């Protein structure tokens, strides 16, 4: 299950990139968390110090009102005695600045405004410390300073770089480990897809991506890929089938032309004979060209590019004109061509293609009808579609062949003896699909009824990639012919 990865390409590996991004994100978020914790903790410590100072100040204020300076000094003495952490700083100074009582050697110069907290550097017992202090004005012009030594916080601050270093190492290790786990997961998820793709490239066309069955994103991706592969394989089968048919159906006339030419080249006794052989060979090649043109036209229609030529057309005169063209041919075959179409029948599509499709249906009907029969061309509006029906009294198409009759080059048993390329119905089918309609072949008992359904109104949007007919729009008379 391991993907072989050449060393030179290791730094281009997507899994490595993913792992690196993961590690970086993890480290960044870890540092952000550490800094936030530090900032929040020191903030909390400062608040606690200020609260303690305020409590002291309030207590001293009460004692001052009880008994003046002596009581205050006594209170300070008590407080100092109870202060085991040795962080309390008190000082009572006379109006001239001289210290009256307290454990602070000198009043800090910048502490001037009473009630404001200052962070000041101090010297206590010969040691340089930082303290948070505030001052109060006492009655008679004296000042009281209450403060706290915050060396604990400083110690915490000094510890921090070390802590951060250890944290960095820890974070790096965790990030690396996490990255490796992520990379492994990622690789395992894409390994199957890429192995399937590789197998298909090698020619194992029936390989599919394994589904985890967990119903997660990777599972639905596997389903999507497999659906795509199925569709491609169906298309390829179609192409193979068509190319086999082309090989067979074109080889015959080409072989015939070749034989004629070779035979004429070596055996013709007169120029006349030679000329006749060459002419027949040219006719054979013209047949090949015609088949090619029909195939290309079907491919062009199936590609859907011709939708650009779609316009509103009136099937009334269009079908009447075709009846005029084929009526004479039908009469020649001893048939009557009956037209049952309203004077105007609006439809939406490609005029040339609809003409050609109906012409092909009429051509077939006339070709397979016995003399004396009747061919009927009818059309009617049908909600949002139009239905064009061509009915003959010929032998029809056996039920088992009907579904395949519109495939390229398909020719039924009865059709083998008649001239034709086997592409006529395939073209009608392609035209029907392009017009979001369908071609359905039915038994007319006796004879064949070809029902061509076309969309009569412009679709809401023109560039629908799907050419599948909309289920409700088409009257399903029997199983539609598929190519």
């Amino acid at each position, binding site marked *: 299950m391991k993907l072989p990865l050449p060393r030179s390409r290791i730094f281009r590996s997507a899994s490595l990139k993913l792992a690196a991004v993961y590690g970086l994100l993890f480290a960044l978020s870890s540092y952000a968390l550490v800094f936030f914790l530090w900032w929040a903790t020191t903030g909390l410590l400062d608040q606690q110090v200020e609260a303690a100072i305020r409590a002291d100040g309030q207590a001293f204020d009460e004692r001052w009102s009880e008994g003046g300076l002596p009581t205050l000094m006594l209170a300070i003495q008590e407080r100092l005695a109870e202060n085991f952490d040795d962080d309390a700083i008190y000082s009572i100074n006379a109006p001239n600045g001289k210290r009256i009582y307290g454990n602070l050697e000198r009043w800090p110069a910048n502490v001037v405004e009473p009630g404001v907290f200052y962070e000041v550097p101090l010297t206590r017992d010969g040691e340089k410390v930082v303290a948070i202090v505030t001052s109060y004005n006492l009655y008679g012009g004296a000042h009281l300073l209450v403060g706290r030594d915050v060396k604990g916080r400083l110690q915490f601050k000094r510890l921090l770089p070390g802590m951060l270093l250890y944290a960095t190492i820890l974070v790096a290790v965790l990030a690396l480990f996490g990255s490796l786990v992520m990379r492994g997961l990622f690789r395992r998820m894409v390994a199957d897809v890429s192995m399937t793709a590789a197998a298909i490239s090698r020619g194992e066309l029936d390989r599919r991506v394994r589904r985890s069955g967990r119903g997660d994103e990777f599972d639905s991706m596997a389903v999507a890929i497999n659906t795509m592969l199925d569709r491609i394989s169906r298309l390829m089968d179609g192409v193979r089938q068509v190319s086999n048919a082309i090989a067979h159906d074109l080889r015959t006339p080409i072989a015939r032309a070749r034989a004629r030419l070779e035979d004429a080249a070596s055996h013709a006794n007169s120029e006349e004979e030679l000329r006749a052989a060459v*002419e027949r060979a040219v006719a054979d090649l013209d047949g090949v060209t015609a088949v090619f043109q029909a195939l290309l036209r079907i491919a*062009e229609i199936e590609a859907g590019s011709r939708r650009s030529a779609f316009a509103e057309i009136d099937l009334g005169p269009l079908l009447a004109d075709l009846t005029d*063209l084929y009526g*004479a041919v039908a009469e020649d075959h001893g048939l009557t061509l009956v037209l049952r179409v309203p004077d105007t029948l609006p439809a939406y599509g490609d005029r*040339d293609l609809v*003409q050609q499709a109906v012409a*092909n249906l009429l*051509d077939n009907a*006339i070709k397979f009808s016995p003399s004396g029969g009747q061919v009927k061309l009818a059309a009617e509006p049908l909600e949002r579609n139009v239905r064009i029906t061509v009915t003959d009294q010929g032998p029809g198409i056996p039920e088992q062949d009907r579904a395949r009759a519109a495939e390229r080059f398909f020719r039924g048993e009865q059709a083998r003896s008649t001239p034709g390329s086997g592409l006529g119905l395939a073209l009608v089918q392609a035209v029907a699909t392009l017009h979001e309609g369908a071609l359905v072949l039915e038994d007319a008992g006796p004879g064949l009824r070809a029902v061509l359904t076309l969309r009569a109104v412009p679709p809401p949007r023109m560039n629908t990639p799907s050419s599948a007919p909309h289920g409700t729009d088409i009257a399903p008379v029997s199983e539609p012919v598929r190519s």
Partner: protein
Amino acid sequence: MRILLVEDDPTVAGFVAKGLREAGHVVEHADNGRDGLFLAASETFDTIILDRMLPGGIDGIRLLETLRSQNNSTPVLVLSALSQVDDRVAGLKAGSDDYLTKPFAFSELLARVEALTRRGKGDGPQTKLIVGDLEMDLLSRAVRRAGQKIDLQPREFRLLEYLMRHAGQVVTRTMLLEGVWDYHFDPQTNVIDVHVSRLRQKIDKPYPKPLIHTIRNAGYMLQPETP
């Protein structure tokens, strides 16, 4: 007639030039777009036969557009291996007068070229067409042969009109399908033959000398004398 042939494939060019010369035309040949444009712009031709795909930076459509932008209205027939309908439309839009898909029968090309040169002469709107003893009045829509009135269906009238307008020229089945019915597809059966044969029943059958002649491997021709 002087015809300019712009075609890069030597086999096709040789075959077409030889055929046109045999039919009595003078042919100039250019095997790339640049030379073709130079000849077309500097000399006078009755018709230009132009291949769509040409080497030398100027393809058939560009050449044609350049020519038309210089108000040169020489009839142009475009030859192309591209059969798709949109390509035909593109060719006609660029200013070509006709379009023929490769591979083609030489008779088809010759018929179309001769039809083009006739059209190029443009002798104004006509009200009467006369070929031999056949007369067609385009205003009253009456047809007479040797003074006898002949009743024609509307489509037969248009078919005969097309043949008379191209009297003395070969008219192919495809030309009739396009010119009379305005159909641009290849019907598998010979529908045109059936219609021409019906027209013959009315125009030629009752008279000693036929006017509509079948030209083998090509199409039909309407003219008083046997070709």
